[in-house]
């Protein structure tokens, strides 16, 4: 039996089941191992002196008093460290990508509040922070560039060496568009803004590094999504070979994109580690995380959309601007290419013209955050409701007239994306059916007659997952059966909450016919190269690699067992760790015996089979694997206070074959709640001088359990073209949720002539808009 369907050679005992997680026993008992739990003899602790100004010259910095303080071992500034690093670029950046200046520490001037200026290493974090107060520094403040909408025209330069605040600007003209607009029944133009948000994982950034000069070896532990990216960067900036760097991957407390690339502080730590040749540890505190890790989602999109008399979308022009801050993560300014190319989403839209640009400002650098391009869904779904209102059609009906359904596939968008195996129309219908949309409209009308404002919002998206290009396009896995029949799996991922320790084991266990207890999962040092975990790629790409490696081992197991059992491979199956002849369960041999034969008894091996029992495989993903979802939610808005209560939240999603449905729902829920946060609660704010105003969790407000509704799920399963039939799903919740919520709020407020085009819809924004509408 060597069929390579979704279950491979074995019965699908684990894939498709909501298997309880392998990670949990240690995590629920407080025995996880996060980077701050790493304690090494002689370890020094780091703290950074950070800029108090958004833009200023450093007139003087004197570290002598700090260096002299008891308990302080070293103080580093740009003078000691910067010359080692000629680029902040991530190893996977396109060669021709623009580059931000490579200042590891601020050198002569500071470019955002929080810009790291000096690094102190001391016996404890307490002492290191004491030492920061002994660093004497004088600033000459300069006029900062804070407003991203005017940054490109400002004479003040965030990075003088670049000569411009414009990071990049790309456009595409659709030559049909002006004719389409001229002939259209209606053309509507609206501009939408999304505000600054922060990834805000529960665990801040952190790193421990230990350079042993006589071993010629660097050991690193970090809160990271990508141990291999960290390996490559550490090697590059320290002038080491990648074989000299060992990144040990432990438990990571969330990231959502913040920890995929190596930041300036981590680079500074690595350089300092080489200098002192003792273990050094830096654990970021929450204030630092909110002002210096990364921010996201500062986007503005102007949309002009043309529709005909039947409410069919004919085309659109979008003009997009995003803020990259001072030091965008990964060493290059943000790219809008995914944003513009995904703009059509799940709707037929034959013509699209677009421009996208990004600017630098003296604020916190932009980093990846769960669906970094999602402004396309935010703007598009808000625009759908806007246009529907303008032409007098219910927003559901307007979507029905334009949404793509299965029978139109494969479908090629105006931006050249080819959709296959997706179900936009089907998820739309499932979601509104779960709500009972017609019934809700009746409830809404009844409520309005007693002065209560209820609203419904819809948001449909296509999620481009598992991007299969370049360094991101493949993952490798090695599956090895040890001499006692238990299995080690080595894979290049960086699981930080995605449950890969469990889901990868499910895949391998199914192929090898063993229990999940028999499998140990390894990430980091010693694993094959992989980009890491992010971009909704693990089920397809890492899962694909694990599957292929396990199938390779399975074939060898069967060949050896066939020799031992004097049977044909095709007649054998593996179950509960035993290989047996189909129909004759007593004729069997354990995996331990097979393994022992492979390692210790070469005479007993069949001809042409080498010793050992492991297989390494690399899975190349197709260019992209689309998943899709429709979100529908209802809310009530209290017009007196502007408080919004979400009543029901429904997600109908199609992520293909689910490895673990419980994990899928958990990923969706987490993304949805981040999206609710972005729509209603979370705002990272700066004042006009570039001072961050939200530096604590009492100011940057993420939803608590009291703010979230029960999330209801509908699942549609349309397998992808990949061997397991899986698709990515991790980012979708955060992509579709913000406009779903804002559409619901606007629907509730429509009768009051209020329509919000800016996120977040805070109580103040709502009350102010209501007062203005009544005036």
């Amino acid at each position: 039996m060597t069929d390579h369907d979704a279950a491979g050679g074995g019965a699908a005992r684990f894939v498709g089941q909501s298997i309880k997680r392998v990670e949990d026993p240690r995590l629920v008992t407080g025995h996880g191992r996060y980077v701050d739990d790493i304690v090494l003899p002689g370890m020094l602790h780091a703290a950074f002196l950070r800029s108090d100004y958004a833009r200023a010259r450093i007139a003087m910095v004197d570290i002598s008093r700090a260096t002299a303080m008891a308990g302080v071992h070293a103080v580093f500034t740009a003078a000691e460290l910067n010359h080692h690093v000629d680029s902040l670029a991530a190893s996977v950046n396109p060669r021709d990508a623009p580059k931000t200046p490579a200042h590891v520490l601020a050198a002569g001037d500071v470019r955002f509040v929080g810009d790291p200026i000096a690094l102190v290493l001391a016996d404890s974090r307490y002492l290191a922070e004491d030492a920061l107060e002994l660093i004497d520094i004088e600033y000459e403040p300069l006029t900062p560039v804070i407003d991203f909408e005017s940054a490109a025209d400002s004479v003040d330069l965030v990075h003088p060496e670049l000569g411009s605040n414009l990071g990049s600007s790309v456009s595409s003209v659709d030559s049909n568009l002006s004719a389409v607009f001229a002939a259209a029944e209606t053309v509507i133009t609206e501009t939408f803004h999304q505000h600054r948000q922060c990834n805000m994982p529960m665990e801040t950034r952190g790193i421990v590094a230990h350079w042993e000069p006589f071993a010629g070896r660097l050991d690193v532990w970090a809160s990271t999504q990508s141990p291999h990216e960290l390996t490559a960067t550490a090697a590059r900036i320290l002038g080491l070979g990648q074989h000299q760097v060992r990144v040990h991957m432990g438990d990571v407390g969330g990231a959502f994109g913040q920890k995929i690339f190596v930041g300036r502080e981590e680079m500074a730590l690595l350089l300092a580690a080489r200098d002192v040749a003792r273990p050094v540890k830096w654990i970021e505190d929450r204030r630092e995380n909110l002002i210096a890790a990364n921010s996201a989602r500062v986007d503005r999109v102007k949309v002009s959309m043309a529709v005909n008399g039947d409410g069919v979308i004919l085309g659109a022009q979008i003009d997009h601007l995003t803020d990259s801050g001072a030091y965008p993560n990964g060493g290059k300014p943000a790219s809008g290419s995914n944003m513009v190319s995904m703009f059509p989403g799940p709707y037929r839209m034959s013509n699209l013209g677009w421009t996208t640009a990004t600017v630098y400002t003296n604020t916190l650098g932009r980093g990846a955050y769960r669906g970094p391009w999602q402004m396309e869904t935010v703007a598009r779904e808000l625009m759908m409701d806007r246009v529907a209102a303008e032409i007098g059609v219910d927003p559901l009906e307007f979507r029905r007239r334009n949404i793509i359904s299965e029978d139109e596939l494969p479908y090629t968008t105006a931006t050249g994306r080819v959709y296959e195996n997706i179900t936009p129309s089907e998820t739309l219908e499932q979601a509104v059916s779960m709500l009972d949309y017609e019934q809700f409209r009746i409830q809404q009308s009844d409520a309005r007659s007693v002065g209560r404002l209820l609203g419904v919002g819809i948001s449909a998206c296509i999620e481009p997952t598992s991007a299969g290009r370049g360094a991101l396009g493949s993952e490798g896995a090695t599956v090895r059966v040890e001499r006692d029949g238990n299995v080690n799996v080595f894979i290049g991922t960086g699981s930080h909450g995605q449950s890969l320790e469990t889901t990868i084991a499910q895949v391998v266990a199914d192929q090898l016919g063993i229990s999940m207890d028999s499998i140990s999962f390894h990430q980091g040092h010693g694993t094959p190269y992989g980009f890491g975990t992010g971009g909704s790629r693990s089920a397809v790409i890492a899962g694909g690699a694990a599957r292929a490696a396990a199938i390779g081992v399975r074939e060898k197991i069967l060949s050896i067992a066939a020799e031992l059992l004097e049977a044909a491979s095709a007649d054998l199956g593996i179950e509960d760790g035993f290989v047996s002849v189909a129909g004759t369960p007593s004729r069997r041999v354990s995996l331990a015996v097979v393994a022992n034969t492979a390692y210790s008894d070469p005479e007993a091996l069949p001809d042409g089979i080498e010793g050992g029992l492991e297989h390494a495989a690399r899975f190349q993903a197709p260019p992209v694997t689309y998943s899709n979802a429709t979100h529908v939610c209802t809310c009530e808005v209290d017009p007196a206070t502007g408080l919004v209560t979400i009543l029901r939240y429904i997600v109908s999603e199609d992520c293909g074959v689910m490895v673990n449905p419980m994990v899928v729902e958990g990923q969706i829920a987490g993304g949805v709640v981040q999206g609710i946060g972005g729509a209603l609660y979370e705002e990272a704010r700066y004042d006009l001088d570039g001072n961050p105003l939200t530096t604590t969790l009492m100011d940057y407000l993420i939803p608590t359990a009291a703010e979230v509704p029960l999330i209801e799920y509908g699942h549609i399963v349309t397998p992808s073209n990949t061997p397991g039939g899986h698709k990515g799903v991790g980012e979708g919740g955060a992509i579709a949720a913000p406009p779903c919520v804002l559409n619901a709020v606007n629907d509730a407020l429509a009768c009051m002539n209020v329509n919000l085009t800016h996120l977040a819809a805070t109580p103040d924004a709502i009350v102010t808009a209501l007062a203005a509408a009544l005036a």
Partner: protein
Amino acid sequence: MMALRLARPEHLVDLNGVTELDSVQAIDGLLRIGAMTRQFVVGADSTVADQVPLLALATPYIGHFQIRNRGTVGGSVAHADPSAEYPTVVVALDAELEVSSTRGTRRIGAAEFFEGPMMTALGPDELLTAIRFPVWAGRSGFSFREVSRRHGDFALVGVAVGIELDESTTIRRAAIALLGVEGRPRRAPDAEAALVGTAISAVDAGEMGRLALKPLRATDDIHASAEYRRRVGAHLVSQAVEEACRRASEVDGD
């Protein structure tokens, strides 16, 4: 304050061991609560609920239960955050603050105690030791309302209201105190005066909200604008006045 690196005292005195300050005593028509009495105790104590209902109504709004396990009523009052609940109750009821130092003990009236955000009339060598809350003995009803961004957050704006009726349905005494509008809790004397002598059925709650906010100068911050606090403050006053009146009218005459 220390966790936010805003305060770096040279010396810190831990009062947790001073058990005499943890007490609830009914004395001569008032309720004397020791400064170290935990917030969760204040919120759960039946004597407090009976004698000073505003304290019981306000307590659930204070942060989260883990905070209320350690936080104290004296701590909240002495800290004087403009959005805090207990200072508002103190001001609403004209409570007296008992303050001690090596020089002796004195009492400070609520109206004089709160001077501004995080600023009180406590001298640098003085310790708040107890709060003496007047007990409204007649037919009275109370309401405490606040609006916050999320459950348990600092209030954007809030109000404490007490209404006492005479033997029929006329208001004999009214107290309205607002939090989160100015830098310290403020009473609403114009609205209170308008309520006294009015029959419950004739109360124009909306007008009371307007009167209460009119003289106040609200503050902007990142969570809410001054205008928001004014509008929503007025709304909460009207809701709380209605609720307190209703509760007062439901009390059986003795």
